[in-house]
């Protein structure tokens, strides 16, 4: 997994590439979210366009980020979830907590 960071106004987009599966990925993602929170960023879009799959530990990584942001009054939303990942979010009912968008503009505007 690699994370690339972009800003659109006060919204931060994290472009994830590869698979998300705990271990090193977990630390990396949590550090990224923590440093965003520390620098006052609270609106985060996680772009999953280039994520082939996520395993259950990877879901935990996303949840940890979601909860950390939530606690500091922020939000984590998902962008471009593939059918495969959507299946996983549905079956685990995580689709009820993760807002998810197909278009980037839509995702960014949803914070206003």
């Amino acid at each position, binding site marked *: 997994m690699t994370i690339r960071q972009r800003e659109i106004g006060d919204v931060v987009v994290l472009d994830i590439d590869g698979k998300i599966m*705990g271990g090193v990925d977990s630390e990396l993602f949590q550090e990224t979210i923590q440093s965003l929170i520390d620098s006052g960023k609270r609106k985060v879009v996680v772009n999953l366009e280039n994520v082939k799959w996520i395993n259950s*530990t990877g879901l935990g990584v996303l949840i940890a980020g979601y909860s950390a942001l939530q606690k500091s009054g922020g939000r984590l939303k998902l962008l471009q979830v593939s*059918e495969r990942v959507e299946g996983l979010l549905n*079956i685990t009912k995580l689709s009820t907590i993760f807002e998810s968008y197909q278009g980037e503009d839509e995702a960014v505007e949803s914070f206003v």
Partner: protein
Amino acid sequence: MSDHPGTIEIRLPSQLRFLGVVDALVQSFSAEFGLGADEINNVSTATIEAASNAVEHANKFSENKQVLLRLRGRGNVVEVEIEDEGEGFDPRPYERELGTEDLLKLRGRGIFIMRSFMDNVSFSRLSSGGMRVHLRKVGKTTAGESDTQDAVRGN
């Protein structure tokens, strides 16, 4: 997509980095036995969960331990066995639905996902002490059926 049965065995090091190889392998094997795109994703996701557990909970990332995958196909049925070199465990506590109190937990979804995505999941203890997870999927999608009506087919 003939009816010949076939079994493939793979031995992997206890490293998460090879889960991508597991995905590619299970995907192409399942496609060979005519499963549809969603079914293929589901078999692969369930296998990745079982293999992750084997690497992490059973083999504890040990260099000296391996994970064995056995893929078996016949007709439109695909079966996967995942064997580890751990100490085994009792899977019964995990044979349950996830409640709303579980929603934001960071772990504990693997076995639930396997059960949700497969037609059949069973656990058994190997004589060596490790676990064998057995996954089974019957293809419902009659993949490419209409597709081949006016096409002739070789291998």
